[in-house]
């Protein structure tokens, strides 16, 4: 019973959702003035998300309180995390999300921290590219050559070496061809496979064949 009820619910809600998203009479049907089934489903999802947020808050608090209580390594960071977590929430609750303090904390701390983390990508791309582009076999050699051409096609020094007005459109012309022909062809082939894979995965769950979401490895 513990496993059957969620499976039946998954199937029923899948049918409801498919019906109310794909069939126009069902999309437009209002069970009360201005209230469609789809709008109610969206509302229930929002409600679940809010409840889930509380669960996330409890999990995060429990985990870091345990770290502080047991004086694990770097426990001071856990204290700081709890101060920031509840402090920011309290500021938002008291003065509102449109208050200057709330917005200032967002603009002065979260935005620069976000940008800092994002900027690290540049260095990680360099280190990953170094490992990937080492010539080991034919495939990695092709990868290196193609990457080199695409890089030159994107920077001004490439334009200086082989102008886009010259034969074949220079590095830029070759780069454009690589990106728009072989790259697009492969990406689309991959997308078709992903679409079909996702479709089959969804059907498995709807038909109750894939029950991993209920726990267990069977």
């Amino acid at each position, binding site marked *: 019973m513990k496993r059957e009820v969620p499976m039946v619910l998954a199937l029923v809600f899948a049918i409801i959702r498919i019906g109310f998203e794909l069939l126009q009479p069902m999309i437009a049907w209002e069970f009360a003035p201005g209230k469609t089934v789809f709008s109610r489903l969206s509302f229930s999802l929002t409600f679940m998300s809010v409840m889930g*947020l509380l669960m996330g808050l409890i999990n995060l608090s429990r985990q870091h309180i345990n770290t502080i209580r047991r004086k694990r390594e770097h426990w001071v960071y856990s204290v700081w995390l709890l101060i920031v977590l509840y402090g920011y929430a309290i500021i938002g609750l008291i003065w509102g999300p449109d208050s200057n303090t709330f917005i200032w904390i967002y603009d002065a701390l979260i935005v620069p*921290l976000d940008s800092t983390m994002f900027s690290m990508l540049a260095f990680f791309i360099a*280190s*990953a590219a170094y490992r990937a582009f080492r010539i080991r076999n034919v495939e990695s050699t092709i990868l290196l050559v193609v990457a080199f051409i695409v890089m030159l096609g994107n920077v001004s020094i490439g334009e200086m070496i082989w102008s886009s007005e010259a034969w074949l459109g220079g590095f830029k012309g070759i780069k454009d061809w690589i990106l728009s022909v072989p790259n697009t062809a492969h*990406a689309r082939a991959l997308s078709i496979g992903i679409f079909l894979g*996702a479709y*089959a995965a969804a*059907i498995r769950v709807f038909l109750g064949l894939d029950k991993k979401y209920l*726990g267990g490895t069977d």
Partner: protein
Amino acid sequence: MAMKTLMLLAAEAEAPLTKWGIFPNVDSAVFGMFFGIAMIILVYVMIQRARAGLPIPEIRRIPGMEAFEEAVGRATEMGRPVHITNYAEDVGDYDTWAFWAYLAHVAKLCATYDTRVINTNTDYLTQAVNEEIIKQAYLEAGRPDAFNPDDVRYCSPWQFGYTMAVAGIIAREKPAANFLIGYFYAESLILAEAGALVGAIQIAASSATAQLPFFIAACDYTMIGEEFYAGAAALSKEPVIYGSVVAQDIGRVAFTIIIIIGAIMNTFGSDAMIRLIMF
């Protein structure tokens, strides 16, 4: 003049609200419905064939799948934990459903080998389900007492907040195996490089085409595109589930045939196939 008036009237006329009276007037509404029905029938037929013991086409081995046990075994030998994460999707997404198959498998391996498994999350509902899946895996392995709820961690709903937290966890806990499975965005390479820096064996599986080059560059094994979903099905080792993967492959062959026929027809000036698909 009359023709011009008619054309102007046609341009001003509102587009029909529905196709065939029941389907919304959006691209591929009818084709999509029939395609969906065909896929369901195909999956059902293949599953029935598998159940009846009738021959169904073999599916090829995926190298990344073979490496799961090796990665967890290595972590066990080194006495270091295993880290597994899925960034972008919530409980209602098929990427998350596929991820759960991997999570259950990895958690069971870890429970059997007595190795810590750390799961980091960005979605609070997914985290709750993940916790249950890992707990159940420990129960099945006969070691429920070894399950540590503190190792199923909710980090942040914020993309780079989550990234910072996970990169920090990887740097501190030094997992010997790092599984990046699911849908990822710009954080993919940061997480993969954080794993590479601590010398973890890394297995990625993703349907995010934009992130696949990063995973291929930074990870030891990468399952690309539909391999991610097929791998999730193959983990169950049930012929019934294999049937759905075979159906998926037949669908791909059908798509290829449609593309070839459509390309030939378009070359000769007919757009009938495009109109059929867009209907």
